[in-house]
């Protein structure tokens, strides 16, 4: 701490904002770790067809439950072994990354759109709009997410689209809460008043004065909700009411491996660790982005 402050006091005028930002990013190990792991998972998802030697769907009953490479009796063509239907576990893991990322991203986009619209409206207009939005947030928080999601998916039938839609319409609460309070903090500031005074329309004020100044918080909430959605999809699929087989979802892989976990514990440890690392990376990235863009809010 002392050496850093001595350094900055010397060159306090010379250091530009972008240099400071770069310094903060490279000094933040959590952020770097998150970026690195997320980068690897994204690469694995994008290049899954190139990286996997086998299809994630092809069954081979003669080669069922081959152990992964670090155990005795492993098959070199199946690095992470095969599952109870003889499907290549590495291929399923790689294609599973696509499912998790897709669900996290699209869910966060849908819920982000709903929550931001509600939160910004509540924060900017206040009064009755704020009361209505706060009420909606209260209602949403009172509904048990897992239970409601399971019930709806069970009625509509599980599929990737249904799971994404259900989660998207359930997870907007944090966006609304954070956007509402961030907009409230800036709606009375001089530049917003100035825009109003020169006759800018409300949509213009919202889009070009308010939104750019709350975008940091939006991105942070987006990462956290992505992680949340990925965990929830895995839990729903694990309970049998999410993405349906034979789709290679990590939650579903854990559910299918559960029967064999007594003798083949790696069937559940491999997808579990993948899930844990992905969610950990996204969370660390979100926390890191908050620390770097708003160092004063570090908790």
């Amino acid at each position, binding site marked *: 701490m002392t050496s850093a402050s001595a350094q900055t006091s010397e060159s306090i005028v010379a250091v530009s904002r972008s240099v400071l930002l770069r310094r903060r990013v490279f000094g933040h190990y959590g952020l770097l770790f998150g970026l690195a792991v997320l980068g690897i998972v994204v690469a694995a998802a994008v290049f899954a067809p190139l990286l996997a030697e086998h299809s994630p769907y092809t069954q081979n009953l003669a080669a069922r439950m081959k152990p992964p490479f670090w155990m005795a009796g492993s098959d070199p063509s199946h690095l992470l072994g095969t599952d109870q239907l003889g499907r290549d576990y590495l291929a399923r893991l790689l294609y599973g990354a696509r499912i998790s990322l897709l669900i996290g991203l699209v869910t966060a986009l849908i819920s982000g759109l709903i929550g931001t619209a509600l939160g910004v409206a509540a924060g900017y207009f206040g009064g009755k709009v704020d009361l209505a939005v706060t*009420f909606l947030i*209260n*209602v949403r*928080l*009172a*509904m*048990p*997410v*897992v*239970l*409601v999601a*399971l*019930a*709806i998916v*069970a*009625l*509509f039938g599980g599929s990737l689209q249904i799971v994404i839609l259900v989660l998207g319409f359930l997870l907007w609460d944090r966006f609304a809460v954070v956007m509402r309070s961030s907009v409230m903090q800036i709606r009375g500031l001089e530049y917003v008043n100035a825009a109003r005074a020169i006759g800018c329309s409300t949509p213009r004020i919202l889009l070009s004065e308010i939104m750019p100044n709350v975008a940091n918080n939006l991105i942070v909430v987006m990462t956290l909700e992505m*992680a949340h959605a990925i*965990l929830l999809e*895995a*839990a729903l699929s*694990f*309970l*049998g*009411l999410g993405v349906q087989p034979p789709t290679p979802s990590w*939650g579903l892989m*854990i559910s299918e491996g*559960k029967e064999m*976990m*007594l003798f083949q*514990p790696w069937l*559940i*440890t491999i997808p*579990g660790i993948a*899930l*844990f*690392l992905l*969610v*950990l990376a996204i*969370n*660390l990235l979100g926390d890191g982005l908050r620390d770097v863009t708003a160092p004063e809010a570090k*908790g």
Partner: protein
Amino acid sequence: MLAFALKRLGLAVLVTFTVSAISFSLLHLSGDPATAIAGENATEADIAAINEQYGFDRPFAEQYAEWLWNAVQGDFGQSYYFKLPVAELIADRLSVTMTLGVCAISFALLTAVPLGVLAAIRPNSLIDRIALFISVAGQAMPSFWFGLIMIVVFSIKFRLLPPSGSETWRHFIMPTIVLGYYAMPAIMRLTRAGMLEVLNADYVRTARAKGAGAGRVLFKHALRNAIVPVVSLSAVQMGFMLGGSIVVESIFALHGAGYLAWESIGRHDLPTVQALILIFSCFYILFTLLSDLANAWLDPRIRVG
């Protein structure tokens, strides 16, 4: 205080009704309940008979009004599967879920608060880093996976604890840890942040300057103030946990309300699912109401603002 309490109570009742309306319409509009009961091989006549028997052919608003009127009086209808009153079924199972909830929140508080305090006393020390690691890992760990790993280690490998069932207190140990770990990170972070703030406050410095012992300063002056937001957070977490018990109860086959919910969803047993959603929501609403009232009582600024 009375005005605040009444206003807050009115809001809670309004939220409860809205939740009941939303969950009722979602479940009734999203599928065809008669087909769900009759099964896939039912004839048209079967379905018509069921529609008439359960009143699915009547206007939607009428069905909702009747259901709500009965629900307020504690009658949630008959379970399609068990052919028993839903209220009885749930009352039977709720004690297990409540026990689990109370154990889990106690476990979370007993581990998270001391850890948060220790981390705040020595920021950036080894213990602070360990606490941070536990909380970051806790947020990323899928609870169903954590449960399975615990079963593999403690039930299968070391044969210490029973993997499923709800007969003895030993059946509750692993579910308590899994569900409690879910609430730990938030409680620990809040305790740590609160303690850090309070330990730098003037009155704590004054207490130290007066020559009060370290233990007295820590517990009598600092923790007492830092713990207030933690209490209200725990109430909210308790509400979330009861809703989240569905995952934990289904892993450990703990026969509580969450397990009942999972089974009922699989069987398309709408009256039971409906009642459970409403009851879990009511718990959440009740806990947040209590915590808001307690906060307003402790801090007059909230009542006015």
